[in-house]
Structure formats: structure tokens, C-alpha cells
């Protein structure tokens, strides 16, 4: 089963870049589900945890290039939140590497496609989220 990746995208950059990737007919993995946010500064840590709880195997947050946030520092706040959440995910045994932050401009359609591919490859290599794969069941499969 293909892995599921949720992308929290800022309206001003990553979301527009994803749109541009489409207009440019660039293909990127269809398992990436885009969630539109007015700014990555609005990405509540709870949204990310809820995504994992609901079965996402990986999550990425995509905001404007540093210094170019429409709300000054939203992307920098998102960056510290992602760093904090990576620690929480490690603590919970889910793995901080399943979460990442990307920065790109609205003109970087190809960069969006690349980020989507990069994340999908990383998560595919890690396998499905341990939340979906209780240990006992893994043991059964292994035996």
C-alpha cells in the first residue's frame, strides 16, 4: 500500500507552487494530500499530531522562503514548532524523521514536486507509520 503523506501548505507560496506544478504538468506522487493554510505560522502542532493519529505515514509543512513570509515570521514559528514536534514524535516512538519542513516560493513549482517526491521516498523507505502497524501484527508478519 502506498504511504500517505500530508502536506500543510501556505497559501502564498507552497500552495501556489503546487498549483504551478500542476499547470506545468509536473508529476509528483499522488499520495501527497495538500492541506491549505493561510500561513504556516497557523500550523497548530495539534493538526500535525492529528494527521499522524488519523493514519498519515509522514507530514511535511511547506512555507515561504525564510525572510519572505507574508506575516513576517510565520514560517519561522512553523520551523520551531516542527523542530519541537520532531522531538515529541521521537519521544512517542513514531519517529521525528516522518515530519519535515520545506521552504519555497510560489514560483518554484518543480521544487514542490521535488519535495513531494523526496518526502514520499523517505517515508516509503521508513515504511508505514508504527501507529498503523501495531507491534504484535508486525511480529505475525515476520514469523
Amino acid at each position, binding site marked *: 500500500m502506498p504511504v500517505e503523506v500530508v502536506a500543510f501548505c501556505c497559501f502564498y507560496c507552497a500552495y501556489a507552487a503546487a498549483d504551478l506544478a500542476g499547470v506545468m504538468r509536473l508529476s509528483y506522487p499522488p499520495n501527497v494530500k495538500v492541506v491549505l493554510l493561510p500561513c504556516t505560522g497557523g500550523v*497548530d*502542532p*495539534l493538526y500535525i*499530531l*492529528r494527521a*499522524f*493519529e488519523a493514519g498519515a505515514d509522514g507530514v511535511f509543512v511547506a512555507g515561504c522562503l525564510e525572510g519572505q513570509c507574508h506575516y513576517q515570521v510565520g514560517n519561522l514559528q512553523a520551523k520551531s514548532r516542527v523542530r519541537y514536534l520532531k522531538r*515529541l514524535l521521537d*519521544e*512517542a*516512538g*513514531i519517529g521525528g524523521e516522518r515530519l519535515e519542513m520545506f521552504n519555497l516560493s510560489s514560483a518554484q513549482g518543480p521544487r514542490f514536486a521535488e519535495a513531494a517526491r523526496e518526502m514520499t521516498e523517505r517515508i516509503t523507505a521508513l515504511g508505514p507509520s*508504527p*501507529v498503523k*502497524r*501495531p*507491534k*504484535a*501484527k508486525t511480529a505475525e508478519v515476520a514469523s
Partner: protein
Amino acid sequence: MIIAERKPLDAILGMMTPYHKVLVVGCGTCASVCLAGGAREVAMLGSLVRMTRQTNDEPIEVAEATVHRQCDKEFLLPLAAEVEAADAVFSMGCGCGVQLLAETFPQRRVFPLLDTKFMGVTLEPGWWAERCRGCGECVLDRTGGICPITRCSKGLLNGPCGGYRNGKCEVDPTVDCGWLLIFDRLKELNELESLRAILGPKDWSHGAFGQPRRVVRDDVRTSAEEGHV
């Protein structure tokens, strides 16, 4: 306000091990403002606990409730049904909240999810610092509004000790010398002379490390019993 910090997830999961249905109770006052145990932290912890337990194939039901504050019984009583429905109660309030929950619902085990740190202030979002140790007899009027008991690492009443270097304390060079702060403040206020008056020995029986303290207001309290703690 009271500043607290969430315990490490491992410790929390350890306390929750025997249970399958728990109630996590947040506090909407201090614990919420210091981002340790408000509704959002309750929701985040609930999510982390459910995911970890699910990963270990030991699913757990986490009910979440956040009350206005946990240090007043009237806010806890409405939780009765939720407490009844849970195997155990986990408090995200300070130590006072945990204890009042346990006193209010003696039939349930109540566990602390936070480490209560100190009474302090917010210096900036995400940065809190200690300001008062509840000594019971405030001397801020004598020290330019800076607490010598808290801000001086040795709690000297007549400092400084002479060990400060470049304005920093010899006990911990990452903190300002409390007595230098007091000196500078009094100088600014043109009240340096007041430092000549020696602060006499403090009566520590009013302090935090004796018997539990109480404040009783006969004009307000309704029960006639002798005030006990």
C-alpha cells in the same frame, strides 16, 4: 503565576501502564498560561499517548477535560461523571490541582503529569523566570522591588556576597547577581542610603519549609470549624 513543565512522556506512559481508560484534566489558569497543561497541551498529550499505546498494541482511551482552575473545588465537582467513567485520573495542573482532585475524588487514583517548578513571570513567550519563593513576610519594600530571597542564589538579606563577577552570580554565572540588581535599582531611585539599614533575621517559621501554612479570613469563610489544613 505557577510555572510547571510536562513530565517526560516515558514517565507518563509508565504511570498509565495499568490503565485502559484514563481522564486527563487540564487547568485553564497558570498551567495553561505557561503552556504546560492547558486544553491544547491536554489534546496534544492525549494524541501522543493514544498513538504510543496503539503502536505498542495496547490501545488506551484518553478522555480530555480542562477546567477553569484545579485549585477550587467548585470547578472540579462537575467532573464527577467523567472521573467515575475513568480507571484513573491524570492531572495537568500544578501540584495543588493534583491534590485537590485527589481530595475531591478519593475513590480514584490521581497522578501528576507536570513537574511544578516555581512562582514566576513570563519574560517572553516561551521563557519564564522565578520571582518569589513565598517567604511569608515580603521585604520588597526594602529592596527596590527586587526579591533578595529569590534573585540572590544564596537568599542573602544583606548582600551582595562579594562573589559576583561582571554582574553575574558566582553560584551560576548565567544569572544576574540579585544584589547588584537591587543596588542598581536603589541607585536609580536615589535611595542607596536605605541600604545602610540592616535587614534583621527573617522568621522562617512563616516560610515554605515548616508546617503547611494557611490563610483564614473569618469575614469570608462560612464553616465554623477550626481552620485545619
